[in-house]
C-alpha cells in the first residue's frame, strides 16, 4: 500500500537555525498538509496545500513557516529562526480529495536546543 514518507525521522537543531522537513506524499494525491504535535498534546493543523498554493493555514503558521513543492514528488516545511517552542513532532499528510481520508507519514521529531 502506498505510504507518505517523511525525512528525517529525528532532527536536532540549535535555536535560531533554519530547518527543512521533507515529505513525499502518495503519488496520486492532490492535497497536502502539515500538522504538529507538541509532546503530550493533541495534533494541531498547520497548513494545507493544493494546486501549488496554500489553501488554508492556522494561526500557528506565521511568517516563520513556509511550505513548498519544489518538484513533482516532494513537499517541504521550512522553519526559519527556530525557537525552543518549535520542538514537536511534525506530521505530513496527503489525500486524493478534500473529504477523503488523510494519510499520515511517520512524523519528524524536531528537537530545538
Amino acid at each position, binding site marked *: 500500500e502506498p505510504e507518505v514518507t517523511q525525512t528525517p525521522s529525528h532532527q536536532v537543531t540549535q535555536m535560531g537555525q533554519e530547518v527543512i522537513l521533507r515529505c513525499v506524499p502518495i503519488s496520486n494525491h492532490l*492535497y497536502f*498538509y502539515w*500538522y504538529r*504535535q507538541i509532546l503530550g*498534546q*493533541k*495534533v*494541531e*493543523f498547520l497548513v*494545507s496545500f493544493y494546486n501549488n498554493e496554500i*489553501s*488554508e493555514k*492556522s494561526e500557528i503558521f506565521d511568517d516563520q513557516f513556509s511550505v513548498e513543492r519544489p518538484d513533482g514528488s516532494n513537499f517541504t516545511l521550512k522553519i526559519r529562526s527556530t525557537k525552543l517552542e518549535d520542538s514537536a*513532532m511534525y*506530521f505530513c*499528510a496527503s*489525500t486524493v480529495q*478534500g*473529504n*477523503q*481520508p*488523510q*494519510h*499520515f507519514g*511517520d*512524523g519528524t*521529531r524536531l528537537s530545538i536546543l
Partner: protein
Amino acid sequence: GIQVEQSPPDLILQEGANSTLRCNFSDSVNNLQWFHQNPWGQLINLFYIPSGTKQNGRLSATTVATERYSLLYISSSQTTDSGVYFCAVVLYGNNRLAFGKGNQVVVIP
C-alpha cells in the same frame, strides 16, 4: 472553531476486556477518522467513518452524524492496543482535520 471532545481521557483495561471510546463533535462534518498513536509516535489510521458502522478485526466504529458522535469499540483487548486513540473531523467547507485530545488506553496483562 469546531469542538472535538473525547471520553474517557484515560482508561486502564485488563487484557481480554472490551471497551468503548467516544468522540463528540460540535458541528456537521464530512470526514471523521480514528487514529491509534503507538508508543513510537506513529499515527495509524484505523477508520475513515463519516457515517455508519465499520469493522476491522477486533476493532469497530460507528458514527451517528445526525447526533454528532462516533464510538470506537475495542474487543478482547491486547497489550498492543495500548496507546492514544485520536478522533479527528473535517468540517464541511474546509479540509483541515481537527483533532480531539485523545483517549489514553493502557492494557495490562
